[in-house]
């Protein structure tokens, strides 16, 4: 098969269908969540659902554009795209518009653009490009550091906007790294960091330090005959203790009270009051009100009454839960799982390393968004404001995820041609 004879049939229709299903349910949910019977004109720009329809329409143009680009375009220009993305993030500091306390937007009149939604795509491309380079050996410390830098730079630029939620998404790149052979010790390290973090918040650094010392001594005595390195043990104890104390310091001094409250609620440390945890509680009530089959479209009392704050953006899943019930919200969970699994499956099939690494990045990013968002809306995770892909209202987010996914569909469509 030659490049010229490629037909639309070579794109993965399963992915496209799941995508279409998700944006349809997503749009209906935005319609419900933003429904205002007083605005009779459907085509009013006051209607968020109408605006979202415009974003979706424009999204289709972007999709067409991506699918007709040369498949080598992304690999070739990935570095440039990455640099442009970082620059646009940096430009936010002098030029960005502050919305809800975060300077994450460029404003063009009433139209706003959130560059962090596109930076994910750029980072995924750049990482794929770097890792697929023949000269890169991920087993070497030097290349590992470089890969980490590619991921860390956008994340570090996003954190102080402040938008810790979007920065958290960059943890997703751990998945392609691991897939490409980075040592498992990083996995253990990552898990340990998270565990220590949570334990520190729960019990305070002093107990953690004592605990670490205690466990270290036990291990040391047990392995005495093998003459363990005292320096290694001391190093572990010191770094754990230091980490624990610094987490505590950051938590108490760098975090704002609202962030602390969010963690404390999920950790069960503070009793809910009317204001803190209000969003999550309202969201749980709305979802719970759905029952098996839901209240029906535009019939959810919590959704119609706008009881769940930010329901058209971060809390959109609660509208699905209330109006379509366990059947509807369960279907959405299944669709997301199928989407991500299909991407992983297709990635594994890629002969081109760039496509495989990019695919894993896409799967990882979608997974982190899905897991953190649904986890938050169902009250399993603290309130971390990141959108649900294809659902949450917003042009930048919708376009970002669409571009992310369709570049992969395009790369995958090309797989056949490279035989």
């Amino acid at each position, binding site marked *: 098969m030659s490049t010229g004879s490629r037909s639309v049939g070579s794109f993965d229709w399963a992915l496209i269908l799941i995508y279409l299903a998700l944006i349809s349910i997503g749009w209906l949910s935005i319609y419900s969540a933003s429904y205002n019977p007083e605005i009779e004109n459907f085509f009013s720009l006051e209607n968020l659902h109408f605006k979202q329809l415009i974003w979706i329409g424009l999204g289709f143009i972007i999709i067409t554009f991506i699918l007709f680009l040369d498949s080598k375009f992304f690999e070739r220009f990935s570095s440039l795209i990455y640099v442009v993305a970082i620059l646009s993030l940096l430009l936010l500091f002098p030029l960005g518009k502050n919305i809800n306390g975060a300077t994450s937007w460029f404003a063009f009149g009433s139209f706003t653009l959130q560059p962090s939604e596109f930076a994910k795509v750029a980072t995924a491309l750049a990482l794929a490009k770097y890792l697929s380079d023949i000269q890169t050996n991920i087993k070497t410390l030097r290349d590992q550091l470089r890969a980490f830098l590619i991921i860390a730079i956008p994340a570090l630029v996003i954190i102080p906007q402040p938008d810790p939620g979007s920065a958290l998404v960059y943890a997703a790149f751990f*998945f392609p790294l*691991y*897939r490409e052979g980075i040592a498992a010790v990083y996995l253990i390290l990552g898990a340990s960091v998270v565990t220590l973090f949570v334990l520190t918040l729960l019990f305070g650094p002093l107990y953690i330090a004592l605990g670490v010392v205690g466990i270290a001594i036990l291990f040391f005595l047990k392995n005495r005959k093998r003459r363990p390195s005292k320096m290694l043990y001391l190093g572990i104890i010191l770094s754990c203790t230091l980490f624990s104390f610094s987490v505590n310091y950051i938590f108490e001094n760098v975090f704002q009270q609202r962030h602390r409250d969010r963690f404390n609620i999920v950790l069960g440390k503070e009793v809910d009051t009317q204001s803190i945890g209000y969003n999550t509680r309202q969201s749980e009530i709305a979802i719970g009100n759905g029952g098996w089959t839901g209240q029906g479209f535009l019939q959810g009392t919590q959704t*119609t*009454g706008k009881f769940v704050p930010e329901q058209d953006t971060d809390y959109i899943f609660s509208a699905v839960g209330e109006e379509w019930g366990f059947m509807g*919200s369960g279907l959405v969970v299944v669709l997301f799982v199928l989407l991500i699994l299909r991407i992983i499956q297709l990635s594994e099939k890629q002969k081109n390393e760039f496509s495989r690494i990019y695919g894993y990045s896409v799967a990882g990013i979608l997974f982190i968004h899905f897991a953190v968002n649904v986890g938050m809306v169902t*009250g399993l995770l603290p309130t971390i404001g990141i959108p649900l892909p294809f659902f949450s209202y917003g042009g930048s987010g919708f376009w970002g995820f669409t571009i992310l996914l369709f570049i992969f569909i395009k790369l995958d469509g090309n797989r056949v041609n490279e035989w």
Partner: protein
Amino acid sequence: MRKLLLLSIVLSTGLLFMGRLFYLQIYDTSAVIKSENNAIKVVYDYPQRGHIYDRNNQLLVSNQPSYDLMAIPQDIKPFDTLGLCKLLGIEKEKLLKELNRARRRASWLPAVIVPTMSTEDYAYLGEQMHKYEGFYIQKRSLRDYQIDFGANFLGYIQEVNQSMIKKDPYYKSGDLIGRQGVEQQYEKVLRGVKGVKRYQKDRFNRVIAPYKEGKLDTLPVAGRNIQLTIDAELQKYGEELMVNKRGGIVALEPATGEILALVAAPNYDPALLVGRERSKNYTQLDADSIAKPLFDRVLQGEYPPGSPFKALTSLIALQEGVVSTENKVYCNGGYRYGGKKPLGCHHHKSPVQLIDGIAYSCNSYFASVYRSTIDKYNTPQEGIESWRKHLASFGLGNFMGYDLPTGRKGLIPNAKMYNRSYNYPTYRWGTTATISNAIGQGEVLMTPMQMVNFTAAIANRGWFYKPHIIKNISGVDTIPSKYKEKQVTTIEPKHFEPVIEGLNNVYNYSGGTANFLKVPGIEICGKTGTAENSIRIDGKRVDLTDHSVFIAFAPKDNPKIAIAVFVENGYWGARFGGRIASVMIEKYLKGEVTRKDLENWVLTHSLEEEYQKPLLGKPFPINDGKRISAKFLAEENQEL
């Protein structure tokens, strides 16, 4: 292996979320309730409560509008506190206290700040209300009493409390419910069914649309008017007669069992339990532990019936065939048995037969026939059981099934009771141990309502309808079927004639106990009763002046009214009870009273002094000075 990490994490996350959704949506049902509290505003449309009429269609109870000043604390904007207080005529501290209380409870819920304002207050306030944001006036419907009597059978309405809401979820906080009397008994008929409208609210508690397009809304069902069997004129007259006395009068129409009058004294003006002063007045009435105005002596008081019971003793003896009207009994001032203290009797001609026995109320005669009745059987146990069954057929010793919510069973002793009290079979007991039953003393207890019922059964010569107060329910045009079922006693009709003859002679004999109570043109049959009674003061029994008891019906043939009168510490049967019965009967049958002498005597005689005696803390005479009670101080060592 590296290929499986993300894959397995995605799968397990999916499963975890499905589980979480299942928990939130299916397993934990609390969210549905929380969501309703959040989002649905329920507005009730209360139908007007049914009116109450008397048997002659006189309006007794209707409704009046009442206005509550309400507030939704979170909507209140800074306002001219002093100005509002002046408008309402209340003190600033009180207003602020009420507002604080409402705010603490739930600042988004409406709360009553000033209840039941008058129509004038409302008219005045209405124009000013726009100045006070967050306040509004809610109209409610309260009872409007056209009469100042009858509180004991009318009952009242009050706001439901938590336990009522728990018992019947129809009621919501703030709803009104009937308590006591016909208001309670016919609550569902009178109240109708409130309409429900549901509105979708948003999170600012604003109504945005009807909930589910109003599909679940219901229209109110109007309350029905009811007509009572009470004759308001007779009731009013009875209450006037009972001023300064304690006790009760109950009158029935024998042919139907309809309650014509139900007087409990002391009574109170039903309007006391309406409006702003309701709970203060109620507390006051409830706290009166001496006069007990809330205690319905007609339905709840259990007393020894005394001599009227002799009519029943005769009927049972006749039915059992142990006497005929010819049998003679000699009376030498009392009935002697087993060498014990005799059952005393007063002076009258001797010997007596049945009719004279009743007319002269001879204790010896009834002791004798009672003994024959019980001794007809092999054992006193069997005899008592047979006797008890006859009495039960008159509705005695059990609830009567009338349509008022309070009552007592009274007491007719059975064999088991005597066995227990005499420790049978270790010790035996004989008929003579129960001999006081013959004359309505001893263990027998009845409510005045039970007394009038057996009187009606005698008037009817052997049957009765269960007493009831409902005459008609508008729109349904019927009454509960149990009040249309004839209750037949175990006594054959023929045995009633001699007894009725005796009861008639009570009035007709010059030596009859009620001769002076005759009413011209009306053949009355009646029986006096005098019931000994006592209370305990500091743990010692102290005799009080006897109760005055009287039963009667009239006319003798085709009776139209049966009546029982009970006056606490009224000396003897004819003195208060007999007089009251005569004028009540005349009032009902003729519409006016010609025996003004009897009427004036009753109206001008008070028993308040009698009721004060035990409260004064010193010895006092009882029964018109005939017996001086020295017991109060003298009988320190005698425990009775």
